[in-house]
């Protein structure tokens, strides 16, 4: 990101980063060739982010679908380790995240540090759920007959997440980690005005053990990317919470589009305000993107 630098004899000009999309484990520019200007909370230029298109969104779904069976097929223990590793890498990038969060959200360094710490801790919390959720949400069912009968949660498949508009890292982590826990793959539309932490998170994911395609990050106009993802027939579920506060988009419109193939929809909480992400997390965000499968088998000799 751009620090304020003044050309002066002997001063070093910083090397800036080009922020791109993250799709299928790679960092492509938008196929549309478009970018948009990202400013800090005071309106100063930070970077040009990729202005993702509908086609980018479709590509991201293809990548997420391709990665889904493998991610869901990993053992829960393995997914837990892979996700925990992400937290380790997040910790290593603290300074960069703090700077981006402070600039984008207009927070003091101290508050930005608190948000980054909470985001790392949040990731650790979810990483620990992978091999516990089936025990908490599953059941052995005492049917009235000679049958073995068991219910367990499974991932629903490809999940689209419209990330919160305000909380650009803590909010982001709080919405993308939960679907990953059980083996869903994710296409996330980042905060429109504050996309930089999402792209930096992509860089963390790219250097972690998370397979390519498990998380795909789109930047751009939420109102442009949300509707085609909500109506996409190869998407199983959508978290529409981030439509709150997005320009030109109502979460109800996304939910209505999602009905076309009976997607699971996670709505924003009653009151239509972005949640306070510092509140204690709850496994309901994990369970919102699961399906309960019940298996029967006769008992006998």
């Amino acid at each position: 990101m751009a620090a304020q630098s003044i050309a002066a004899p002997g001063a070093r000009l910083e090397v800036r980063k080009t922020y791109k999309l993250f799709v299928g484990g790679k960092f492509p520019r938008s196929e549309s060739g478009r970018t948009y200007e990202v400013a800090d909370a005071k309106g100063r230029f930070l970077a040009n982010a990729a202005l993702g298109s509908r086609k980018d969104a479709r590509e991201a779904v293809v990548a997420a679908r391709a990665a889904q069976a493998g991610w869901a097929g990993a053992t829960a223990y393995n997914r837990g380790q892979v996700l925990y590793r992400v937290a380790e890498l997040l910790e290593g990038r603290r300074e960069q995240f703090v700077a981006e969060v402070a600039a984008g959200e207009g927070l003091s360094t101290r508050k930005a540090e608190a948000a980054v710490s909470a985001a790392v801790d949040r990731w650790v919390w979810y990483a620990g759920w992978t091999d516990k959720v089936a025990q908490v949400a599953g059941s052995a069912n005492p049917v009235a007959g000679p049958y073995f009968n068991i219910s367990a949660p499974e991932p629903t498949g490809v999940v689209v997440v419209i990330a919160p508009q305000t909380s650009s890292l803590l909010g982001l982590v709080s919405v993308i980690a939960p679907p990953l826990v059980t083996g869903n793959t994710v296409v996330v539309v980042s905060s429109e005005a504050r996309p930089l932490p999402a792209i930096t998170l992509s860089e963390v994911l790219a250097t972690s053990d998370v397979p390519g395609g498990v998380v795909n990050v789109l930047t751009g106009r939420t109102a442009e990317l949300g509707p085609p993802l909500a109506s996409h027939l190869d998407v199983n579920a959508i978290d529409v919470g981030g439509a709150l506060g997005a320009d030109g988009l109502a979460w109800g419109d996304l939910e209505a589009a999602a009905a076309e193939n009976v997607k699971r929809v996670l709505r924003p909480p009653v009151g239509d305000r972005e949640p306070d992400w510092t509140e204690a997390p709850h496994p309901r965000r994990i369970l919102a993107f699961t399906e309960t499968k019940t298996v029967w088998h006769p008992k006998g000799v």
Partner: protein
Amino acid sequence: MSPFEYAPAPESRAIVDIASSYGLFIDGEFTPSSDGSSFKTVNPATEEVLAEVAEATDEDVERAVKAARRAQQKLWGPMPGSERAKYLFRIARLLAERAREFAVLETLDNGKPIRESRDVDVPTAAAHFFYYAGWADKLDHAGFGPSPRPHGVAAQVIPWNFPLLMLAWKIAPALATGNTVVLKPAETTPLTALLFADLLRQAELPPGVVNIVTGARATGAALVGHPDVDKIAFTGSTPVGKRIAREVAGTHKHVTLELGGKAANIVFDDAPIDQAIEGIVNGIFFNQGQVCCAGSRLLVQESVAEELVERLKSRLGTLRVGDPMDKNTDVGAINSAQQLARITELTDAGTAEGATRWSPECELPSSGYWFAPTLFTGVSAAHRIAREEIFGPVLSVLTFRTPQEAVTKANATPYGLSAGIWTEKGSRILWMADRLRAGVVWSNTFNRFDPTSPFGGYKESGYGREGGRHGLAPYLIEGSSF
């Protein structure tokens, strides 16, 4: 008559007293519809008109929702769970006491064999109330946080294939959790729900806790669209389910949908063949195949396909199709002329698209709605009979070579309600079960239902679960300690 034919064994209908007309059950009383409109319900096995039933208008729905709201706020919501439990236990007991009456009425109104309504529908409905009764005072320990709360008023719309059982699936968890109910039974099968209202009188359930509004599509739409319902539970077709999902979009109404299916019933070459044949028959001919989780696509491993189809045909030759009131009947009447037309259309498409059609010799009654058990071989995955829900006694047979191919074919459908696996190999069952995208997987059995066992679909078969602890979740707002 050959010595091996069955003598008629008709169940008596004397036990049930059908009124010539029924009103709407609102706030504990039967009342006519606001504009006096009504519709007829017929016995699909004979086309005899059974009764005239009030058709609820928007105004009636309004009255029912108001009654439910009042009862929820003043009485049912604040009532201790232990008291609600006792009402539900009463209902379970009364259903068991009047089981024969309900079974006979169900068969008359629906057309299903008395053997099924007597042995499956009614006892399972009673068991469902008994199961959820016990939850009513244990909700703090159900895993939904301390002191979980009811939503308020539940609007419930149920189908005609299991009228009383679907009523039980809907009403029991709603009442156990402190919600009150406005229920709309299906247009062609309203009678057991109205008899259930009489049972509620005996149970002395307070007025307004359960309201029953009979009617057709417009009544259902008015109920689902009513701004003062908090929770919608719908069982029915996928198109209607999608419409409901679109209608509630952007609101905070909670919805569960139990929609269509096109289940694969997968038979491997090492399957216990006699059991598999019985499972296949039960999977698709139970309730005339009018079952959302019916095993309507038979996937047979190629090496045993020929033998299995031959044995299946000879088994189908022994099915007794006819009078649903006969205790020996296996396959009864199709529920309505409309449904019969749908089955006919799709099976005609099967023939037109090149599949081979076969039915056993069987004489169908001259009046009523009937369809002979039907088997299609030479079916490809692209045929309509392999893709669309027929909801009738029609089985499409496809083949596969490897377990992976079976999984791919089984999952190649927008639906995901149920699946069946037949093999002696345990590790293969578990491998398959992990990969099948279906909410219920029956291995070496099919079409088993139990109040403790969660039921519901993946993908376009809907969302939410009914039955078991999971079945409480759609009716509760999670409690929180902070």
